[in-house]
């Protein structure tokens, strides 16, 4: 079913997908519009001829015990997805949890921490500083964070125009051509996964690299992780790494009480992680 469809920039692809979804009622019935937007095979495969979103159920796994805090994922994500290079716009970020001797609560920091920015040299590069090198650390670990692409996403629920939507394959996407920039979704996400692009006037967040996964590739953060702390795959596929990850480990999700049903599964996180 592969055709010679040209490489499509992410925004164009998402825009076409969103518009197709928004206009579903109008174009249902195989009008010429649908044919023009998605090719002749559209009746068999939606939203594009070479990717059928009804056949996948994507999910993400994070093994915090493997993360070394190198931040390759953060750097790669910023580059791949053209994310604003500063300390307040992240599709993925990594948190450092450190328990010092005699302390019951973790000290937590991430990329917006002034000491880390100073250690990085600028807000456009990312690394953790060495503030704990002389401290007596009893326990420490890194927790990669990303949009949870929830089963019942509060961000999708609150969007007044339906610009953010849940695709059939489980990913939560944003149509930047339809977003009105009210930022209700940013408020509604309990995980802080969304941000606002001031220059474009729209909300943004991780798409699990939708432009890659729909072509059979992995999200870039998964690809670059040197320790395989991040796994991604199709829960419908019994041989996938994510299926194995979920089936063979006692997994946790973040803030389960929110009722959002996160689809990022964690192993190796501690009580203070939220």
């Amino acid at each position, binding site marked *: 079913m592969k055709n010679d469809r040209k490489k499509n920039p992410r925004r164009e692809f998402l825009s076409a997908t969103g518009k197709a979804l*928004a206009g579903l009622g109008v174009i249902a019935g195989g009008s010429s519009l649908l044919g023009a937007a998605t090719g002749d095979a559209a009746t068999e495969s939606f939203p594009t001829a070479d990717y059928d979103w009804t056949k996948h159920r994507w999910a993400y796994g994070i093994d915090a015990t493997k993360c070394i805090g190198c931040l390759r994922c953060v750097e790669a994500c910023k580059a791949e997805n053209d994310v*604003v290079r*500063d*300390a*307040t*716009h*992240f599709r993925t*970020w990594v*948190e450092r949890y450190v328990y010092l001797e005699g302390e019951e609560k973790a000290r*937590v*920091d*991430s*990329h*917006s921490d002034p000491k880390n920015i100073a250690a990085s040299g600028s807000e456009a590069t990312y690394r953790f500083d060495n503030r704990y090198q002389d401290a007596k650390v009893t326990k420490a670990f890194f927790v990669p*964070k990303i949009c949870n692409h929830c089963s019942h996403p*509060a961000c*999708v*629920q*609150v*969007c*007044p*125009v*339906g*610009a953010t939507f849940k695709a059939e394959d489980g990913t939560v996407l944003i149509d930047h051509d*339809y*977003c*009105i*920039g*009210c*930022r*209700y979704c*940013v*408020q*509604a*996400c*309990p*995980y*802080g*996964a*969304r*941000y*606002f692009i*001031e220059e*474009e*006037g*729209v*909300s943004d967040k991780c798409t699990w690299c939708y432009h890659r996964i729909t072509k059979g590739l992995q999200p870039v953060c998964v690809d670059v992780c040197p320790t395989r702390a991040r796994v991604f795959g199709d829960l419908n596929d019994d041989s996938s790494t994510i299926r194995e990850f979920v089936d063979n480990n006692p997994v946790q999700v973040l803030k389960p009480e*929110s*009722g959002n049903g996160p689809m990022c599964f964690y192993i190796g996180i501690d009580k203070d992680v*939220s």
Partner: protein
Amino acid sequence: MEFAPFTGYVYPNEGVIQWSVMIVIYPYLTGLVAGAFTVSSFYHVFGMQQFKPVARLALLTSLCVMLFVPVPLLMHLGHPERSIYSMITPHLTSAFAMFGFFAAFYMVLLILECWFVFRVDNVERARNSTGLKRFFYRAVTLWSDDDSPAARALDHKLLLILAIVGIPAAHGLHGYIGFVYGSLKARLWWESDLMPIIFLFSAIVSGVALLMVLYVVASKLRRVPIDHACLKGMTYALWGFLMFTLILEGLEFANLVYKGKEGVDAIMEYVQGPLFFRYFVLQFGFGALLPIMIMGLLVALNIKGRAFVIGATICALLVLMNVLMMRWNVVIGGQEIAKTGKGLLTYHLPFWGHEGLVAAIILTLAPFGLLWVVTRLFPPWADPPRST
């Protein structure tokens, strides 16, 4: 990109506080609309005669403020030109999808109500004027000059129906805004079943307080005596509603603290630190307890005359400050408490810019500039010797 200073741990994306002063002004204006409409309804629906001197002024106030309600939202949106999408393709699960419809419905209702309330006056004005002025008032009456007793009776009947529909519409619009916050489970400071009710009652007190100030100021400017029964009636209403609002707000806070859910530690740190002055001193102390005590004294000591006017006006101004602080403390406060439950942020209000202090002040005062013009065109005053 400047980011908000923080303590503790906040998610990196929380570094920019997204809902600005414009989202403080927006529920403030909406509350004034609902409150002013309530004052108007005291007379137009419930027939409370002592509110007659302010009933029509209240209606015009409600209309003038309502015309500005969408402005802060539009100034805040990343793509204001797309705001119409919320009406063309509303996403019905969103608590905000219905705003455009509710607001439009209420706006039409207000315009209709004003039209009927001022219709006979406008017919008379058209008759007694010439040239362009005559054309203006003829146009305003839609070229209808029927002021027969039968037509007036019909006006009254329709007005009553409009006002009866208007009460739930005005309060629905505002309670709905409370729901937008109260239903947002990502923020502990907002997530409260009491939020819509608190928004509603604080709206009523803000509207009553506003009308007290407007009535006193207008009477002074027009050099006409203040109707003490009217001012006293509004003071009583303010006193009662304010006590109720204060109890609701106190209960909400008590609930939050007593339940002690995860994240309450950050909230306690917040209310005892950065929020203390804004919340306990300004909102509760000077904004609610002080006016309740002053109004209690005004009533208990049966104070009359100039002292009563001064006391009541001061109370009304304090309550207007109280409600503004309440909006600020909810909207900004909620965002200053990090979703991590482990940190606090500080919002800095820029001076200039479309979401800055100057824009906010202009936007808050603009409806009253419009009201000044509108009261010139359609005098709402009910003092018999001067009415036209």
